[in-house]
């Protein structure tokens, strides 16, 4: 996935940064927390704004033009998402609140329908809580087994153990494409391939990956793929669940209500086909429209160009941080990208976070919703910097200066 790609666009981060009003409004801020949530370009903000100001109405059920225009905008975004991740059809795209909901939806529909006591689900030690807790809840309900692929010292999954764990009891492999805590990227292509050979259903958590590499779910051939709009420069409250059409068709509905039904009587209710079956109630219309605008924005800059640029910046940041005495970077697997988790000797990550903030540098300090990774590293928390397309070398330089100040204070 990270092979050098032919760059059609020249990407200019300084220029792109001007599209993000947050930086004009906070000129002294260096934002290095995009893995938690990305900032929004004016194009996305305008799309949301236009949705409410020009052609807003509830969708799907209105015969009048405002409603039909809003419906077209909402469904148009579904097509954009499908194209962006290489789905075969927009009917394979379900809009959710966020990746967390996408995973819960799969657990509660596909999971409860297909799993029984004795079956196993395989996840890794580097999953985000969103890809742990839903399966624990299902485990406790159904009496299934939750198996954990351990991570190596270099911060990627232990492939040999993975192969051993992938036996006939395993019914689902649910794995992240990029660790949000370490930035390492498990070999999902190979893992999905091996799982499918054994008839195992596969779910890929693309929250981080979809932002930093071209994704094609059809080539990847996973059954499910999930991500959140807010990390892809889109609005909050909108997430994506991709599912192969035959999977979505066979699944029972998730939430019940308006829009997901074909007909309702008190005796019997029949459900609409996917994706409507999984989108009960009035959806986040403006959120979907904004996500479509975010994808348009990325396409206009060229995803490959962005990725190449980010990779270069990532290497620059790695070198710059390693040049500071007393800094430890967690995970050194070559697959790493966009995210660096580190510690500064004798300073707690929370103190680092605060002192960096005082200097205008926004990083995350904590467990990054991946407590098992922290446990594996033997630390209560780490400091994490993560890149967005608007970051520049100046931001990294600022981070370095700010870290030196931390060391000076704690001297």
């Amino acid at each position: 996935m990270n092979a050098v790609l032919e760059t059609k666009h020249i990407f200019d981060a300084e220029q792109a940064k001007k599209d993000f009003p947050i930086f004009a409004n906070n000129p002294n801020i260096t934002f290095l927390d995009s893995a938690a949530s990305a900032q929004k370009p004016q194009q996305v903000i305008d799309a949301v704004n236009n949705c409410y100001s020009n052609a807003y109405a509830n969708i799907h059920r209105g015969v009048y033009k405002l409603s039909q225009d809003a419906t077209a905008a909402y469904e148009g975004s579904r097509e954009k998402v499908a194209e962006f991740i290489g789905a075969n059809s927009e009917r394979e795209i379900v809009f959710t609140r966020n990746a967390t909901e996408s995973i819960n939806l799969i657990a509660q529909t596909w999971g409860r329908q297909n799993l029984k006591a004795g079956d196993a689900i395989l996840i890794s030690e580097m999953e985000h809580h969103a890809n742990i807790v839903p399966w624990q809840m299902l485990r406790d309900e159904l009496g299934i087994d939750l198996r954990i692929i351990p991570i190596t010292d270099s911060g990627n999954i232990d492939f040999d153990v993975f192969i051993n764990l992938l036996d006939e009891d395993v019914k689902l492999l649910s794995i992240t494409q990029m660790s949000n805590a370490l930035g390492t990227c498990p070999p999902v292509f190979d893992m999905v391939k091996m799982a499918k050979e054994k008839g195992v259903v596969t779910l890929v958590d693309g929250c981080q990956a979809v932002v930093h590499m071209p994704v094609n779910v059809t080539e990847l051939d996973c059954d499910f793929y999930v991500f959140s709009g807010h990390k892809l420069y889109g609005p909050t409250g909108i997430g994506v669940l991709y599912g192969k059409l035959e999977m979505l068709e066979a699944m029972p509905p998730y939430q019940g209500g308006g829009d997901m039904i074909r007909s309702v009587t008190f005796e019997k209710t029949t459900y609409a086909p996917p994706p409507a079956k999984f989108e009960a109630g009035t959806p986040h219309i403006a959120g979907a429209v904004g996500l479509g605008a975010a994808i348009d924005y990325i396409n206009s800059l060229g995803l490959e160009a962005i990725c190449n640029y980010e990779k270069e910046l990532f290497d620059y940041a790695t070198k710059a941080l390693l040049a500071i005495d007393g800094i430890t970077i967690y995970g050194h697997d070559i697959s790493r990208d966009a995210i660096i988790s580190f510690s500064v000797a004798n300073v707690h990550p929370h103190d680092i976070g605060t002192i960096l903030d005082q200097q205008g540098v926004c990083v995350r300090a904590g467990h990054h919703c991946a407590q098992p990774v922290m446990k594996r590293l033997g630390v209560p928390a780490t400091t994490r910097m993560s890149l967005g397309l608007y970051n520049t070398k100046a931001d990294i330089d600022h981070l370095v200066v700010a870290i030196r100040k931390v060391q000076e204070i704690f001297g």
Partner: protein
Amino acid sequence: MSDNDLRQLYQDMILEHARKPRNFGEHEDANRHAHGHNPLCGDDITVHAEVDDKGIIKTVKFEGQGCAISTAAASIMTGLVKGKTLAEANELFTNFQHAVKDEGMEQKLPTKLKVFVGVKDYPMRVKCATLAWHTLHAALENKQEQVTTE
């Protein structure tokens, strides 16, 4: 940002206590114990107190790991409550809580606690400054449940 501003929160006294916490370790004579946890940053603390039958706090010690703010707060606390009655300790806690949350409430505080009022500007760090105090409070009340600062 000037060095001065930066030092507002991380004053020398805080840094000094964080580096060399007082009353750190086990406590054989303690008759009150509690465990506190801040899930957001992983701060984890156990407070041991020895209270005599007149309700006077003889000694307090603490164990665990945390950031500079929470460690310094625990260290300074153990010194301040020594010899105080339960009521006095609780009053100190209440005043401290107000002072780190609201503007202009620091007059009543002993100097040693005034160094923490800088956390007011960092709502997430208020939890660090008060974790030890919450845990002491639970110990004095003999609460069994783990204290958390969510």
